């Protein structure tokens, strides 16, 4: 077990073979695994059995906060802070408050979608060991990668390398320095 290593990275050229390989990695019991694809590859995410994304909950929360904030702003402003008597109409004229409330709901929900997505992904991240692998630049063009990290309880530099090299369609296995 070498601690100067981030993990081992296997490279694939075929979008379908990498899915089969990811299934095998998962069934072998590896958990500290990441996979890389140049586009949202749903089968690959499925093969790694990723838990459901939490973005939607954050968006719901953001939307509710936005709704309360928007309506609260209209209510407090029009009823307490700056009441305007217009023909004796009620100060709490809620139909008129719906439009700003609607807009702030969407605004806060959209902001929480973006901020939530970045937060859950740990971005911005100035450094990541994966970029040490020279071929990794092609993860944004046409190559697929599976990386088993050295922190995985089943990780063994020799065993894991042999396992990865035995996967179908693997083009190359590279050691990822820290």
């Amino acid at each position: 077990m070498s601690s100067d290593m981030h993990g081992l990275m296997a490279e694939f050229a075929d979008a379908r073979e990498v899915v089969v390989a990811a299934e095998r990695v998962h069934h072998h019991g590896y958990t500290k695994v990441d996979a890389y694809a140049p586009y949202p590859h749903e089968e690959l995410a499925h093969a790694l059995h990723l838990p459901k994304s939490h973005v939607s909950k954050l968006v719901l929360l953001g939307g509710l906060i936005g709704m309360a904030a928007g309506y609260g702003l209209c209510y407090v402003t029009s009823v307490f802070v700056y009441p305007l008597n217009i023909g004796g109409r009620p100060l709490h004229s809620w139909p008129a408050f719906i439009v700003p409330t609607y807009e702030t709901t969407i605004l806060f929900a959209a902001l929480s979608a973006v901020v939530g997505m970045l937060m859950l992904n740990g971005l911005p991240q100035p450094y990541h060991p994966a970029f040490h692998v020279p071929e990794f630049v092609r993860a944004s063009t046409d190559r697929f990668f599976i990386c088993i990290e050295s922190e995985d309880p089943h990780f063994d530099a020799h065993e894991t390398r042999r396992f990865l090299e035995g996967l179908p369609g693997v083009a190359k296995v590279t050691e990822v320095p820290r």
Partner: protein
Amino acid sequence: MSSAAPPAERHPMDQPGAPVVAPGHTLESVTAKISGVVLTKYAPKQWFLGLAVAFLLLQLMALAVVNLLFRGIGVWGPNVPIGWGFDIINFVWWIGIGHAGTLISAILLLLRQDWRTSINRFAEAMTLFAVACAAFYPIFHTGRPWVAFYWLMPYPNSMGLWPNFRSPLIWDVFAVSTYATVSALFWFVGLIPDLATLRDRTQHPILQRVFGLAAMGWRNSVRHWHNYESAYLLLAGLSTPLVVSVHTVVSFDFSTGLIPGWHATIFPPYFVAGAIYAGFAMVLTLAIPLRRWYHLEDFITMRHLENMAKVMLATGLVVGYGYLMEAFFAWYSGNTYERFMMYNRMFGPYWQMYWALILCNVVTPNLLWSKRLRTNIGVLFVISNVVSVGMWLERYVIIVTSLHRDFLPSSWGFYSGTIFDWSAFIGTIGLFLTLIFVFVRLLPAISIFEMRTLVPPQARKENAA
């Protein structure tokens, strides 16, 4: 418009029935082709020419703004009784143009229309730039924009003033600023993976750092994509009601008033349809020359142009229905002022405007019923420009003809744009085009990662082609 005339030999993707992506493309070729537009040292000569013209027009805007701030808004035409002139006409026109971008990126995504993929990026950019041009008008119409925040933005200022939330004008502030923010977020989120692609592909050390910073460490991890897809879909879902709401709120500026010709319940749907109509016309106006100059016919094919033409036809018919209903209700209401308004619109001092509008917006789009005409790129380019002019005339007619003769003949008046109105308007066109030209040079105008998903599965490996 000779630039859009059909070329002598037709590109195969210019034929009717072309696919969404030209056959034979692989992940590598799609990535190389689109990122190549940004990462090359050379830009086509049309780009330099276009930018030069746009930048020249932008200088006109600078002159117009300086003159306006120096001499006050009296240099513009609006005056009693026509208090809203070019500033609101152009505001509504630009905001409307922006709508197609959000429609393409959000609604067509949710409807799984995969042809949207190659046009959504620059349509979204178009939205942002159109909203920037639109924002120019209300901000500068306040005369002193630096003190306009007292009544535009709710914050505890030293004057103790707060905005009136019962006013549609403040709804507009909320609607438009939310629209601008969410459009910018959507656009930026879509760009993150592509910025990472540019970071990985460029050989230039400074560009690697610039794109690297902008991509924020995106590394195409499946875990990233997993959250990303979720966020992207949710943003699309949130933008969808937003598209419908923005122009609805803009129409409230008019329809909550009592002016004859404004006080109509048909305004919200008819404004939204008009916005999408104008927006698709502008997307076509931009897409037709860009695909040619940058040789992107493989990705923006006749299929896209034809589909956009069909959307334009459908929304054009809705707009035509809106005009018809406006006239019908003016008559059916039995209201003297409404009836006079309609008569005055058709046969009063602005009759040329009204009939030109009908010609541009109701008669012209019907040419698109013909498959031969809508698959002729030159004709399509001309029609989309005619529609843009028509939509501008629509706002002119709604605003000016309704205001210039209201209830009391003693308060009747006449309006026409001054040279400073026109220079500000042409200036914003310069701003819009300059931003578009700069955008296509610096950032990928087509979403690379989404185009990769359109590559057929058997070509999604390295040596497939």
